[in-house]
């Protein structure tokens, strides 16, 4: 399929389930070839948004176009343009990887030699050539996710939806999947809409990030801009002598606002980006010896904290 000239446009998208507002009027613009990370805790509205954009769930209100097609009025055209790997690898444990690909490609009208070659190519791309004829129930979580990705790519979609693609995967499988998704966007111009609850994933992979909480987008931008916008570095100092923690508190208090620290340490979020040398000089001047000094750059979790008053990691608000 030729790459779409259009990405995803969303205006005031709403989805209610009886009295519960899962998505409360979001606006998005995602350019072709962009990797957009949709970050938020469980129950924030990420999957509901994906279901609406992939035509599986009609919106209650608002408008969305995917690859230039309206998700309500042009469902079949949207589906022909997109690939989706939804939450939980939706696979049949009693079929082999190759049988899955055969079924999926045939349902998309790909048959004969073209299908055979496509399946071989996709199995190779996701590293499942050797395991292609094994039943899926023998696959590891990472292998299932890779097969899921291959199935989403079977009809060469211009837009790919990945709903928490690396949840439950080991670090090695996660990195392999990130590499493949990055390659798809970089080399093939595929637009990727990726939901995740992993900060690192959004940070590493996404060109832009939207943070959703309680159905609202609370922040949006490149990871670097979001962090620069609200996050200042945090300095954490462990005094060499534990009874000097009080002196340390007074000293560091001059450079920033107290923030969470490990037991036996004291930390402040610095007032300015260039304050670390001044902190070190002050420690030296006041003869306060430090066992450890750590400088933490702001993370997307800091952004989430600033926007919602809660930390993202471990946040499960249903």
């Amino acid at each position, binding site marked *: 399929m030729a790459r779409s000239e259009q990405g995803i446009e969303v205006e005031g998208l709403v989805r209610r389930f009886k009295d519960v507002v899962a998505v409360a009027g979001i606006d998005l613009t995602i350019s072709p070839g962009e990797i957009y990370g949709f970050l938020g805790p469980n129950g924030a509205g990420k999957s509901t948004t994906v279901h609406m954009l*992939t*035509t*599986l*769930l*009609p919106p209650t209100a608002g408008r969305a176009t995917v690859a230039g097609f309206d*998700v*309500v*009025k042009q*469902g*079949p055209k*949207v*589906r*022909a343009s*997109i690939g*989706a790997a*939804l*939450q*939980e690898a*939706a*696979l*049949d444990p*009693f*079929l082999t990887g190759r*049988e899955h690909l055969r*079924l*999926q490609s*045939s*349902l*998309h*009208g790909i048959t004969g030699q073209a299908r055979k070659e496509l399946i071989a190519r996709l199995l190779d791309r996701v590293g499942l050539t050797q395991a292609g004829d094994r*039943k899926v129930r023998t696959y590891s979580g990472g292998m299932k996710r890779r097969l899921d990705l291959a*199935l989403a790519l079977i009809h060469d979609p211009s837009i790919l939806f990945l709903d928490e693609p690396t949840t439950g995967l080991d670090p090695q499988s996660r990195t392999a999947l990130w590499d493949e998704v990055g390659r798809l966007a970089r080399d093939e111009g595929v637009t990727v809409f990726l939901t995740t609850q992993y900060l690192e994933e959004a940070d590493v992979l996404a060109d832009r990030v939207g943070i959703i909480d309680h159905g609202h987008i609370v922040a949006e931008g490149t990871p670097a801009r979001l962090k620069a916008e609200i996050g200042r570095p945090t300095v954490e100092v462990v005094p060499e002598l534990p009874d000097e923690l009080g002196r340390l508190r007074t000293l560091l208090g001059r450079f920033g606002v107290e923030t969470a620290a490990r037991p036996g340490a004291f930390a402040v979020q610095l007032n300015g980006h260039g304050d670390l040398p001044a902190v070190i000089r002050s420690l030296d001047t006041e003869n306060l010896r430090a066992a450890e000094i750590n400088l933490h750059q702001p993370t997307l979790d800091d952004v989430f904290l600033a926007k919602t008053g809660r930390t993202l990691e471990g946040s499960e608000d249903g």
Partner: protein
Amino acid sequence: MWLIARRSVVRTFRQPGVWIPPLTFPLMLMAVNSNGLRAATHLPGFPTRSFLAFFLPFSFLQGALFASGIAGTDLARDIDTGFLNRLALTPVRGAALLLGQIGGAVGLGAIQAVVYLGVGLAAGVHIDSGVPGAFLILVLAVLIATGWGTLGLWIALRTGSGEGVQSQFPLLFFATFISSMNLPRNLIEVKWFRDIATINPVSYMIEGLRSLVLVGWDAQALALGFFFAFALIACSMALATRQLKVRMTRT
């Protein structure tokens, strides 16, 4: 449709725990009942001296009932795992999806019918309608399996869970028992039982099959048997199609 049906058949036959009990349990019941209830053949008006020949058609019904459970449970699992969503994202039509999903149950129903008939013939049952009648028995048995299988799909789409499907199974089983499975309706003395058996479509499906074994070519019994088999398919398909639209809300 054929692609989904093929997958349904493949997955069914790759799970021995799914297809062995439906294949063997009706045979065991047939063996037990044909011996234990043999005395019923001495009742005045009982249509045959062989209770095995009388009971054989019920095995097809019972096999079909298992098919219902298999089709329903498989679809419920597809809903639960998100496989139905995967199919919904392809150009496949809803009707093709439903017809394909019962492929495994129909395939199993066909094999069951051949096995039951083969065992019956090996045990000495004589098919009065001959070879064409035996073929028609297989056709009607597959139609009945299709009807029950589709009913299983409706239950799965309605409940969305394997547990939901399993919980309905005893009700369907009960419905097959309050029929003319063990006695001809005219010999059932308990009025309420006879009345329920008379309005129970299962009785007519059994009697359609039974007529081919015991009577030969009984047009009325066959017409009623086929009518209720087709009616079951039509009603179940209508219910399942409607429920699929509720479950699969793609635009």
